[in-house]
Every structure is written in C-alpha cells, then in structure tokens.
C-alpha cells in the first residue's frame, strides 16, 4: 500500500517553502495555491502535504500557529522561519542546477 506521491520527495518541500515565502498560510491554502499557480498541473494530496509540513516544522524551517481565517474558521497557519528561508535558498539553487542540467541533457543528447 504505497502512499500516493505525485511529486518527487524533496520537490514538495521546495514548493511548500516557496509558497510560504510569499506569505504564511494554512495547509489547505498551500495545496490550493500550488495547484492554482501550476495551472492545475501539480496536485498535492493531503497524504503527502501534511507529513511534509510536519517534517519541515520538526526541522525548524516552519513555524506553526493557530489563527482565524478571514471567513472565521480556525486554521493552523505555517510561516517560514529564518532557517527556513536559508533552506529555501539552498533548495532553489540545487533545483536550478538540477533542472538546467536535465534540460541540457534533453536538448543535446
């Protein structure tokens, strides 16, 4: 019974960190935003989103707090910490390297 994983492990972390770099958000909003921005290409399932959020929180890259949304519901809002921002930098760089490398291979080979 493998868990559904639409995204490569690690890539999801990057997407979450990037999304939260804009503004703090709760889990559902993060998933929604990734979906919208990617024009419905990237579907983040709950099964991978929440474990990822918890993992990032444990690493100290995210900070969670309970607050109320504009519609009045309570939600656990995640925000990037300073360490999380640095981590985002690192992951962006390595992603750039990786994707350009892949692109090169696809073009040239």
């Amino acid at each position, binding site marked *: *019974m493998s*868990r*559904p994983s639409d995204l490569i492990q690690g890539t999801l972390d990057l997407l979450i960190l990037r999304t939260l770099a804009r503004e703090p958000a*709760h*889990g*559902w*909003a993060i998933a*929604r935003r990734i979906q919208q921005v990617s024009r419905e290409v990237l579907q983040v*399932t*709950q*099964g*991978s989103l*929440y*474990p990822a959020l*918890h*993992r990032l*929180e*444990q*690493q*100290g890259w995210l900070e969670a707090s*309970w607050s109320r*949304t504009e*519609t009045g*519901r*309570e*939600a*656990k809002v995640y925000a990037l910490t300073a*360490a999380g921002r640095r981590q985002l930098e690192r992951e962006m760089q390595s992603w750039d390297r990786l994707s350009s490398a892949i692109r090169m291979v696809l073009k040239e080979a």
Partner: protein
Amino acid sequence: MTRWLDLLRHRLRSLFRTAAVERDLDRELRAHLAAAVEEKVRAGMAPEQARREALREFGSVAEVAEACRDVRRVSFVQNLARDLKYACRSLLAQPVLLVAATTSIGLGVGANLTIFALAAELLLSVPTASRPEELVHIRTGNGSHVSYPAWRGLDASGALAGIAGYDLAAGLNWRGPDETVALTPLIVTANFFDVVGAPVARGRAFSADEARIERDPHLLVVSHGFWQRRLGGDPDVAGSRLILNGRPYTVVGVLPADVRSIAGYGLKPDVWVAANRALVPLLDDPKGRGVMLVGRRRSGQSVGQARAALAVVAAQLGEQLGDDELKIVTRVSPVGGLGQVEEVQTVGAFFVVLMVVAGLVLAIACANVAGLLLARATTRRRALAMRVALGASRGRLIQQLLTEGLVLAGAGTIFGFALMAVAGSMLARISLPLPLPIALGLAYDGRLLLLAIGLVVLTTLLCSLVPALKATRASLVPSLKEADGVSTHRRITTRNLLVVGQVAVSLTLLVTAVIFLRNLERASSLDPGFDVDPVFVAQVTFVEGKQGTPALPAAALMVDRLRTVPGVREAALAGGVPLTLYFGDWSGNELRLSGRAEPFHAEYSRNFVGPGYFEVLGIDLVAGRTFTTADRAGGPRVVVVNQEFVRRYFEGRSPIGRQIVEGDRPPMEVVGVVADSLYRSRKARPRRSISRTCRRIGTCHGWCICWCEPTPRRLSARRSATRFVRSTTPPPSPWSRSLRRFRSHSCRVDSARHCSACSVLSERCSLWSASTASSRSR
C-alpha cells in the same frame, strides 16, 4: 545548533505531550476538510454532497494521521511501550511457553555470564593497590623469583619509583588459643606497602623504615578474613601480639575485606609478614631465589622505558652478584589485565573453549525458543493477518514479534543472573582441601553488564527474528480464510534447519562431554603403580623452635607411634608422596656411576623416604632390599632406584651394589630396585626415580607421614590414626586425606617452595597452570 534543539523540543513534545499533539493533528485535518467543504459549497454544491466529495478526495484520514505520526519519529518509542505491554500480557497468558523459554535462555545466559565473570576475575582482575595502573610485574631469566640481594640492588638503583618483593610461602605456624594452625603468609619486603600502597582498614601498614631487615622486624598485617575468623574481629587488634613459629609478632593493621592480593589468581593470604632472617634464611644469599618483584613506574614512565631502565640495571647487578638469571629482564608487564598472566595462551585458550561451549549452550537454548515461537506464530497467523488487513506494515509486525523475543530474553537474562549468583555463592563456599586459601569472587561490574546487554540483544535476534520474518511472510488471504492454504512443500524449511542445527550442536556438546568424562574416568582408573585406596597422607609441618632441626626425629617418633595405632598396618615417613602436592623433587644432576667413567647429566625424580615407605604405598620390590631402620642417620648412604632408572642408566643390568655419585656429594650405594610408579600426576610417564633414605636434612621441615589401613572403610581406625597424628606432640599442623579423595581435590596451588603441582585436573584443564604459575620452579 538551535536546529537540533528545535528538533529535540519537537520530539520531546511529541513524546510526552502525546494527547496535545494528537488533538492538534486532529484539529488541523478537520480544518482542512472544513476548508475543502466550504470551497465546494461556494462553488454551488449542496453541503451534504460537498462533504462527501471532500472526504472522498481526502482519502483515509487515519492513514494521513499515521504518516504524520511517523514523521514525528517517536512512534517507535510509543510502539515499543505498547508492544512491551502487549507482549507481557500475551506471554503471561501462556505460562508454559514463558517458563520454558525463560529457563532455556536463563541457563544459557547464566553459563555465559558465570564463565565470563570467572575469566575476568582470573585473567583481568586488578590487585588492590593505589594507582594500580602504575604497577608492573618484573621477571628475569627463566624463573619467577629473584634473590633478596638482587631485589635490594634493583630497588636501590632507582630505575623505577620503587620495587617491592613478595613471596607466597607455606609453613607459618600460629599458636592459636586452642590449637596450632598453619597460616599462609605473603612474605613481603619492607617497602612492600610503600610501593604497592594497598589500603588498610584498621591500624596501619608497616613502613619501609620500621621493617628494615637490620631491625629484625616481627611485623605483620592480617587479612580481613583471618581477623574475623581467627581473631574474632577484635577491634583493638592493632598492636596486639601473635606467636608465629614460636616468636612474637606485632599486628600493625588489618586489610579491608575485598582485597585482591598482588599474588593474583584469587589467592587470599592470611597474613602479610615483613621478611626477616628467621622466615627467610636465604636473605643474603645471591643464589637463593626468594622473592617475586612488583615495581611502580615513575609518573610519565612508559612500560617500555621502565623495561629499558631495568635492563641496564639488571645486567650490571647480575654481573656484580654473579647471577646469570638476573642479567636478562624477561618481562615487565602491567599488573591487572591479560599482561599479568604468565601463561596467557593456555589459560586464555581454556576460557575460550569454555566460552565456546557456553555459547553453544546458549545457541541451543535460542534454537529451542525460536522453535517455540515459530510454533506459536503458526497458531497466531490469523491474528497477524488481521492486523495486516487493518493496515499494519510488515515492519511494524516484526517489531512487535521482536519485542516478544526481547521480553523473553530479558526475563531469561534476569534468571541467568540469579543462576550466576547461586553459582557464585557456591564457588565462594567450596573450600578446597588445600593449604592455600583461594577465594574467587565473581564481580558484578560494568563489563558484565555490557555482556548481559549484548546477550539480551543477541538472544532476542536469535530467538525471534526468524520466527518473526516467517510469520509475517505468510500470504494474507489463506490465513484470513483460516484455510491451511497451499502449504509450500519445500524440503528445507526454517523449522527443519532449526531442528537439524539444534541436534548437531547438542550432539557435538554431548560427545565432547562424554569424551571429557571418559578421559577423567580413565585418568582416575589409570594404575599409578601403587595401591591408592588404603593410603592416607598427612602433611606435617614443624616450625616451632629452631629451623628444621628437630623435625626429623619428631616425625620419626610419630611414625613409630603411629604403627602401634590399631588398624594401621604400616606407616612411613617421606619427603613427598606421589600424586599429592608434595610429590618430591624433580631434579637434574651430574651423575657418576661406578663402572661408567664419564659423568653425565641426568634428570630424575628424587624423594627422601623412611623405612616402610614402599610397603605403605604397595610398590613392589623387584630386586635387592628396601630401607630398614638401620639405614637411618649414621649408617651407610643407600638408595633405592626404580626400574625406569635402571633401564635408562644401567642399561638394564643389575645395579645392586653399584655406586651413584650426585654432583660433588658422597657416593651412595644402590641397595634395591622397585617397580615403576607415577609421581607428579596421572598423566606422567613412569619416571626415573631414586629414593634415598631419610637423613637429617637441614632446611627441610615439612614431612609427609603416610600410613596404610587395610580396611579403608573402617572409619574408626582412620579417625583414630588421624586424631593420633593431629594430637601428637610436637604440635603439628597436618591435613590428612585419604589419598583417593585427596587426589581428586588436590588441584590448586602448591606451596611456593615446591614447583608446580597437580594431578588429574591439571592435565585436563590448563586452568590450573594459572594457579601454579605463581609458584613456578625457580
């Protein structure tokens, strides 16, 4: 750094505030669902349908929650706690399994622990001293002992911070309130306590200055055991007097209870006596090897440096004293640890064999338990399959089954410790019929704990890994249906392998044990060349009065009187009796025989015996005559040789009437030839032997009296003879045993005056070579 702290904080929170964290998770997932529903409603869906749709999209809430828990990584600990609880409950429900498994593992683990502790005590224990890591054993030449002048020279040279000498001696008689008791003293040089720095519980130790030889010191420190047993634990013992060998000695202190003496091997001397001229007649003789050396390194001096420094000094000193043995420093090794054992290979090998046997026993036990668990897993297949169906991963199930194994292994190990405690107290209570006190304490220390933990882990894996893997591999559906399924008819199954292995190992052990017993049995039924059963031996030590002189007439008198005791058929005096600790000398000499021009080197065993000796032991006379009372001091020097001696040196011709010259001593005439018999141990081949009649021997003050009772089961006669020897004046300190019994027990340390001893067990178990190492020939 802060990241790690963060991580730790989160993990701890997850671990200890489980409820809060769980509530948090629940709230979060609920909020997510609510948001999803809200969105769908906003898009125009009916609330009820929106809710169903959202749930469908979300999938299994429980699974997501479980994944989040996994991320927190503490689920392992929580699962372990739950598994432990479950395992205990389910095992308690099956008491037969629990008892069987605990007992098997307990026996295996107990054997391992006990043997390890024994080996650690014998091989690795550190003697009680201050900063024992600085102490080194020093040996020169081939022997273990050096002369007192050599010790004095080495100590004065300043090669090390200090060098002390000690010698485990025999034959110190203490005139107690009711009887005279033979004590085992550690005769030490004056600076012993200054150098070694053993702690003193009561009073003080003697200093190098007050125990100087020139002051003729009569000082001693007593062991805790002696103080308790013999002096009644008298609190004012320091300063009191004891009469030892007829002279007053002053007790200056009492050592603590758990002292490990520098002599090692669990030897527990009764008293530590400062060397003086009366105790050590050879004090000024550079040839008389009387002390073993222990030195303290200077701070910062390595063992290598210490050895180098000693080598220079010893070479000079050897030249100066004319002592070739002293010139070469053969060993400078730290006390404690394997380095201290002189025959580390034989002793080590012995313990390795024991450990392997114990390991095999544990392996069998584990196989047993694994078999039980395997059987149990089969009956539980349905329950396991159900758990798999409910979403438990295989790893999770294996973890739970391993936990059961852990519980069994833990319980078994606790039982093993209990067995070891019993074995330890039995070991402590065994009193060997020996003149030397030995106590082997099993130490419960960190090393043992480490081993126990290792054994628990190993046992757990051995017992339950295979059953766990096998049980969780079972295909799900047939198990659920409780059908037997299409069982795999493989020829080699895990259980078969297990049984085969178990039988193989058991058989190996069984065969080994049988061979061992056969050997032992054969050894004890080997014909020693004389009649063993009716013979009794008493070792009598006379040290009251002047050294040695009155011993022979007194002993001869005792023998004469003993002959008159009812039930005693014959009695005799002897320097040694074969197969006991006191078996006579084994010596090499320049021999000259009449009729043979060239002197030659010969090695043979030598004994001094009185009239009646051969008759007592039942050694047959082949030619000539044996000794008579007429051969006593003053008569012509006569010897009796055995057949092996004749074969070897007289080329089989009759030696009667021929003369033997030992070195530069007066010639002796051969008057008789006796049959071969064994001497030192059961294994030894017939040895060339020569027996001289008892004459006045200056330094020898210990004699064996042996006697013969034709009907050994008549206890009364034996008792009366024993009582007679005990009570006869002058006060002897005999210990007598039927030779048969004596032999089977006589396997510990000989007195330091004799070379290494022993009989049956010594050849079976090289362990005993360890115990005799301290008294090796010099």
